[in-house]
């Protein structure tokens, strides 16, 4: 086949990028090998030689990955759609501010983000880790090697079905997709970008993924130190630097997870911040284990106990990060998760990634197990380290049971390999399942983090402190009990399990505050842990308040009850229908859908909330502005963004659950408009007609006949309509029509408009939602209104100013000139000379009116624009001026206004479209959740800073 010379492709950046990807891979391999020997070789000179090679290789690796990222950004910003990754994630319409989101929307981009952070953190290690540089960077290089392999996109093997290694982000579209379009050389001019998923077009998606991936990348540092410790046999030296990094990692990873929750709550319509989705779970699990590691690391630093556990925790943390990567990216989660990636053929590589580091960890631990030091003497039962250690076991336990449940699809897959008929197990209702176990975890954490604070490391004389300990504990229990009671007045606790949890949540807050005040005595070194634990306790209270007492306020009281056992009312009626301008009482609020505005693809609604007290006085009032984002073709809603009113003690969350179909899909709206059952009517101006029409009854194949009355009130030659934007040369006619359904009292007045623009007819119908009717003018109206003009007989008059005369019984006076005339069909132009004649008219039956026909000289051409008094049937033209005799020539004609019937059409099957389907939820105490979790992170950050300072002070 002849090779096609494609037009307009930019191949050079891609080629450079491809080369850089290979460099990334090779350099990380080289760096790994060099750092390996730099660690292994005892001889100083040789080790230093390897170290230098390792450094350069690592930096080359870093430069290469930065280049790849830079090139992809360049391609994305330039919108070079010949590249598959660009085509899949960018579109012409995508605002530049979402370019980062588009970059990490795909698997490849997020892998690169992850590698980016590994490089950044790796360079910090390279500069600061000292003797730990070689072993830790050897580990990081190997990690990078595995991730880089995901980007290679090369084929290995022969024959029909070679194995592909990795998925390359710089592939050309025509290399990936086989489509007929690529037969044409200028295919580029015909394709456009798919663009970023509208749900991700949100600032959260700009900040959440980089934070989370920095968290992921940071867990590799304590891991690398742990491997380095086992490798070199220096079981104590690594503990101090690992702790600072562990705290950093805990802070960043935790913040990343929290941002995910905040995003879900604030910007997505999930109606909550945590849903026990597998993807959420698997980012939480490594964090929990990491927290365990931080605690045993503290024990190890203070007492020498728990070094082995610290190894295990830090190793597990990273292995679970990789496992989480496997779960979310291999497609194994399938239909159990809302937001997992689908498979991309990376399963084998991901499994190899986990297997390598798992085996490495196990082998190293096994080899070094004997040499890991531990104090002879067992921890005392009343010592801090004992109970802290128990606490870490609880964390690990929590992590493992979450993992066990989340891994159910993996277990199913394995079973299916051996037994193809095996029917996969699935958790019926995940949220209660996870909550059921995690409640008790949280209770224990509350209990342990409360009491252990009062204990001391290496306690060997507890009896001396027992009294003081007892007093503080007893006092705390009493205060916590009291506070629990007070809290239960505010929120409904529902069951004794939750009461226990609430008590221990408060208990840890009380004890840690007490500890901060009575024990640390202003010594801020220990404050970090107290902050974190206070935060944890507050968070628990916040979760209980906002989770247990989350109240759907958009309850429809008319919904059928008892339709399903076990389903609460909330589940059954989360949505409520709101008609525009009609207030609805929802819970304590009076809610009204006020208005909506469209700005390109976004439609923003204004929903008004009013709360009244028992006397009916307005207590508070606020507006919420949820919006929806249409897709590019205006045929569906791509995203629905909630809006939340925040109070100190509660949030009111609102989102648009649905809209009338005609408001969602503009294509459907056109079809619907075409399929409306319009009936043609005709009436003289002022005449009232009655007619019958059928109205469908839903759910039954029957209909009823209803009687309608319509009156054509007037014809307007200068009409306006909300959707009509006048253009020069338009011929527009409007008609005012009154419509009434006979058994209803209300009379509706509408002003449909019909416009003739060139050869095309534009109809602007009017909808009457209350009686599901739509009114439009029929084409014949032009003949009826303008037709008589052709056979109208004008009579000419030459008039002086002030002259009065009579025309077919009408008394007419030429009052004078208007030198700045306005006329619906007149747009002034430079150089125009325009003047109108003011003619006041009195009809035989005593009505009066003023007509102002216009006379214009444009260039050297005279023009005139007619005016008319339709009620009298009079038409006026101003046809000439004679300056010498100071007279004007006016032509007047009389038509029989009622000579022609005006045609219009009415459809009575136009469903109403002025409503929204709204979901509204009240979250009490949700700010306690945010406050508590942020405090937890601040505690971690604070402890990290303290550790780094201590290290500096020692150095």
């Amino acid at each position: 086949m002849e090779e096609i010379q494609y037009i307009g492709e930019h191949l050079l950046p891609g080629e450079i990028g491809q080369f850089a990807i290979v460099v990334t891979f090779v350099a990380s391999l080289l760096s790994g090998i060099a750092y390996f020997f730099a660690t292994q070789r005892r001889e100083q000179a040789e080790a230093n030689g390897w170290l230098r090679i390792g450094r350069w290789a690592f930096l080359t690796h870093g430069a290469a990955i930065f280049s790849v990222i830079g090139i992809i950004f360049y391609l994305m910003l330039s919108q070079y759609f010949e590249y598959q990754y660009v085509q899949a994630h960018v579109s012409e319409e995508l605002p530049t501010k979402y370019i980062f989101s588009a970059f990490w929307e795909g698997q490849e981009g997020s892998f690169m983000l992850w590698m980016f952070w590994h490089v950044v953190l790796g360079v910090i290690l390279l500069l600061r880790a000292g003797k730990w540089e070689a072993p830790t960077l050897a580990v990081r290089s190997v990690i990078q090697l595995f991730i880089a392999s995901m980007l290679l996109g090369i084929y290995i093997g022969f024959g029909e079905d070679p194995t592909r290694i990795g998925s390359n982000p710089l592939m050309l579209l025509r290399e990936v997709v086989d489509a007929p379009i690529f037969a044409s050389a200028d295919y580029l001019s015909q394709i456009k970008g798919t663009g970023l998923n509208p749900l991700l077009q949100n600032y959260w998606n700009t900040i959440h993924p980089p934070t989370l991936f920095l968290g992921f990348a940071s867990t590799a540092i304590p891991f690398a130190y742990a491997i380095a410790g086992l490798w070199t046999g220096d079981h104590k030296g690594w503990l101090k630097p690992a702790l600072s990094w562990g705290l950093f990692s805990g802070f960043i990873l935790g913040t990343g997870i929290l941002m995910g929750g905040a995003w879900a709550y604030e910007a997505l319509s999930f109606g909550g911040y945590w849903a026990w989705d597998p993807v959420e779970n698997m980012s939480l699990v490594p964090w929990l284990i990491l927290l365990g590691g931080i605690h045993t690391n503290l024990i190890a630093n203070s007492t020498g106990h728990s070094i082995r556990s610290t190894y295990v925790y830090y190793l597990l943390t990273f292995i679970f990060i990789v496992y989480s990567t496997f779960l979310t990216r291999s497609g194994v989660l399938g239909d159990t998760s809302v937001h997992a990636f689908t498979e991309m053929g990376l399963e084998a590589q991901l499994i190899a990634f986990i297997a390598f580091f798992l085996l490495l960890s196990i082998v190293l631990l096994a080899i070094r197990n004997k040499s890991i030091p531990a104090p002879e003497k067992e921890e005392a039962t009343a010592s801090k380290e004992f109970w802290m250690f128990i606490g870490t076991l609880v964390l690990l336990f929590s992590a493992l049971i979450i993992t066990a449940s989340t891994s159910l699809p993996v277990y199913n897959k394995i079973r299916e390999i051996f037994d193809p008929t095996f029917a996969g197990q699935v958790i019926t209702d995940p949220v209660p399942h996870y909550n059921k176990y995690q409640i008790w975890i949280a209770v224990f954490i509350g209990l342990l983090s409360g009491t252990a604070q009062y204990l001391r490391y290496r306690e060997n004389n507890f009896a001396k402190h027992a009294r003081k300990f007892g007093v503080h504990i007893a006092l705390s229990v009493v205060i916590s009990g009291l506070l629990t009671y007070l809290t239960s007045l505010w929120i409904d606790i529902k069951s004794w399990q939750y009461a226990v949890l609430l008590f221990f949540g408060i208990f840890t807050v009380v004890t840690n505050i007490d500890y901060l005040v009575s024990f640390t005595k202003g010594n801020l070194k220990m404050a970090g842990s107290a902050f974190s634990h206070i935060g944890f306790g507050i968070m628990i209270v916040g979760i209980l308040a906002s989770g247990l007492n989350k109240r759907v306020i958009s309850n429809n009281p008319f919904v059928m009850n008892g339709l399903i056992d076990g389903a609460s009312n909330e589940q059954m009626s989360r949505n409520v229908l709101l008609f525009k301008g009609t207030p609805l009482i929802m819970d304590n609020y009076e809610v009204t859908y006020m208005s909506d505005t469209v700005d390109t693809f976004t439609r923003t609604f204004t929903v008004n909330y009013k709360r009244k007290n028992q006397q009916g006085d307005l207590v508070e009032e606020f507006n919420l502005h949820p919006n929806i984002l249409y897709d590019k073709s205006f045929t569906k809603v791509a995203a629905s963004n909630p809006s939340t009113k925040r109070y100190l003690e509660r949030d009111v969350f609102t989102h648009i659950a649905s809209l009338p179909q005609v408001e969602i899909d503009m294509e459907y709206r056109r079809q619907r408009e075409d399929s409306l059952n319009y009936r043609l009517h005709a009436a003289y101006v002022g005449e009232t007609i009655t007619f019958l029409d059928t109205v469908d009854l839903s759910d039954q194949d029957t209909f009823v006949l209803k009687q309608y009355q319509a009156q054509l009130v007037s014809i307007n030659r200068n009409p306006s309509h909300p959707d009509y934007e006048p253009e020069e040369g338009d011929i527009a006619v409007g008609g005012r029509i009154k419509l009434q359904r006979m058994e209803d009292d209300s009379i509706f007045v509408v002003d449909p408009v019909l416009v003739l623009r060139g050869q095309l007819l534009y109809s602007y119908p009017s909808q009457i939602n209350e009686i599901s009717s739509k009114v439009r003018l029929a084409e014949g109206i032009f003949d009826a209104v303008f037709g008589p003009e052709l056979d109208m007989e004008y009579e000419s008059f030459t008039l002086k100013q002030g002259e009065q005369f009579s025309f077919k019984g009408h008394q007419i006076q030429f009052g004078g000139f208007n030198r700045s005339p306005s006329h619906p069909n007149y747009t002034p132009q430079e150089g125009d000379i325009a003047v109108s004649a003011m003619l006041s008219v009195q009809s035989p039956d005593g009505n009066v009116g003023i007509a102002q026909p216009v006379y214009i000289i444009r260039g050297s051409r005279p023009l005139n624009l007619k005016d008319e008094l339709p009620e009298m049937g009079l038409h006026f033209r101003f046809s000439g001026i004679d300056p010498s005799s100071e007279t004007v020539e006016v032509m007047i004609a009389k038509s029989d206004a009622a000579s022609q019937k005006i045609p219009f059409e009415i459809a009575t099957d136009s469903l109403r479209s002025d409503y929204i389907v709204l979901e509204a939820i009240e979250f009490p105490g949700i700010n306690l959740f945010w406050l508590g979790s942020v405090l937890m992170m601040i505690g971690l950050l604070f402890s990290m800073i303290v550790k780094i300072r201590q290290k500096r002070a020692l150095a």
Partner: protein
Amino acid sequence: MKKIYIVAIVMVAVAIGLLTTAAEDMSTYATFEEAIQNGKRVKIAGQLAKDKEMYYNPEEDPNYFSFYIRDTEGEERKVVLLSEKPQDFELSEQIVLTGEMKDDEFIATDMLMKCPSKYKDEEVYIKSEAE
């Protein structure tokens, strides 16, 4: 024996205990037939019967959306989802519903849809003539 080990053993025992209770929360994907027989709350996986009626009229009830799905055995039944009609519903390939049978209908409170992912989308977007 070290106290820590005792604690660890207790925890393992508790874990085993918990795992046995966890079995209650698990189920296999049911078919309509099984859902009728056991009358319990189950999960059903199936495919949307695109030729059958989908009904959502918010004016009548904004929390009532009905459609038909075909379960893994090929049986087609009416499903009522007590919620709004989700976006892109017609595009869904696989639907997982949580709920129970009530008379002839499967009443679902929870639904998860798998739509053809854009990452796998092998469709090239062609600029339309109108632009």
